[in-house]
């Protein structure tokens, strides 16, 4: 096992920035997921319409939710990296 790669995420500012980014992405995903649930509950006939290569909306939307979770995770990682760089510079100045 290697030693820990970086300690910057112990910084409170980075941590709060990460939490904010996380919440923002959470609400984005929540809206996407709520759309799926609303369609399934209120307009199931829309779900049965073929939208992509003969595959119906229910499967396409469901698969997008699964793929979307991975995309959201990647975006979160990228945002956290940005937060660390932004606040990391300030940290250097204080040292």
């Amino acid at each position, binding site marked *: 096992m290697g030693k820990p790669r970086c300690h910057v995420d112990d910084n409170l500012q980075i*941590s709060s920035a990460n939490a904010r980014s996380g919440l923002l992405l*959470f609400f984005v*995903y929540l809206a996407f*997921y709520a759309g799926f649930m609303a369609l399934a509950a209120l307009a199931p006939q829309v779900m049965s319409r073929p939208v992509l290569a003969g595959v119906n909306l229910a499967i396409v939307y*469901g698969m997008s939710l*699964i793929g979307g979770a991975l995309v959201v995770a990647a975006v979160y990682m990228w945002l956290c990296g940005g937060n660390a760089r932004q606040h990391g510079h300030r940290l250097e100045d204080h040292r």
Partner: protein
Amino acid sequence: MIYETSWTAIGVFGFFVAVVLAISFYLGAKAKSASGYYAAHGQIPWFVNGVAFAGDYLSAASFLGICGMIAFYGYDGFLYSIGYLAGWIVALLVIAEPLKRLGKFTFADALDSQFNSRGIKLAAAISTLVVSVFYLIPQMVGAGALVKPLLGLSHEIGVVTVGIVVVLIVVTAGMVSTTWVQFIKGGMLVVFCAILTAMILNRGLSTRPLTSGSPGIETPSHSIVAPTGDWATDRGKPFRQIEVAPGRIVVEHDGGTGWQRVQWSERRDGLLLVNGLPHGRGDGQADFEPVGRIFQLSQES
């Protein structure tokens, strides 16, 4: 089914358990602090942690359970796999960072440090125990069910053995060994699944639906029944009735791609017949298959 005890399989199982326990005890000796026990000293390399996470999510429940649910319940089973990922997003985006910032290792500790309330601590403890129990019971039953065909041991021995091994691994070294065990499991699952997928795809894919002429369909000596009653008046429609066994009639439909078996029901003398057999789930009874295709829905009067 009767399974024979396989000493080779038990040997391989024992070898893996011994290796994992050895790693666990070795790493356990190094865990001296709470952060070592709960958070693996924060020293797990990112790749190992990632594969361990994948191993977590490829558990028996998702791996076998969701495959089985999709096979038996179709789209309803698929919904569960979406729920899994949605839950993971909540843990990643909402729970993980604040928990880390508070320097706590369990959700109950984090709540306690924020609110300092005995009621909240009690509620968190009870909910943790309830969720764990309901999560562990199917896992243990699944382990017992797997041990039976794989090793030929009885169900009870499977449950107890797996329970003891899991408790030993977690208690000895906490998160360090748990993560490494999940890494090994996740890695093995991904590799062997890839091999299995390649082997299955190697057999080729076919999208042609099974017709009554294909092998495997129970119409060796079928005979087409002459249409009578309502069937006679529907003569123009591409349906035919086939007697597959004395008194058992199935219906086939030609939608332009050849004759295909369809599901049907009929009320005869007040008795509901489904696919030519009395409606029910016992022997000599039939129920609608949850997976299939529907050509038409009509309201039964």
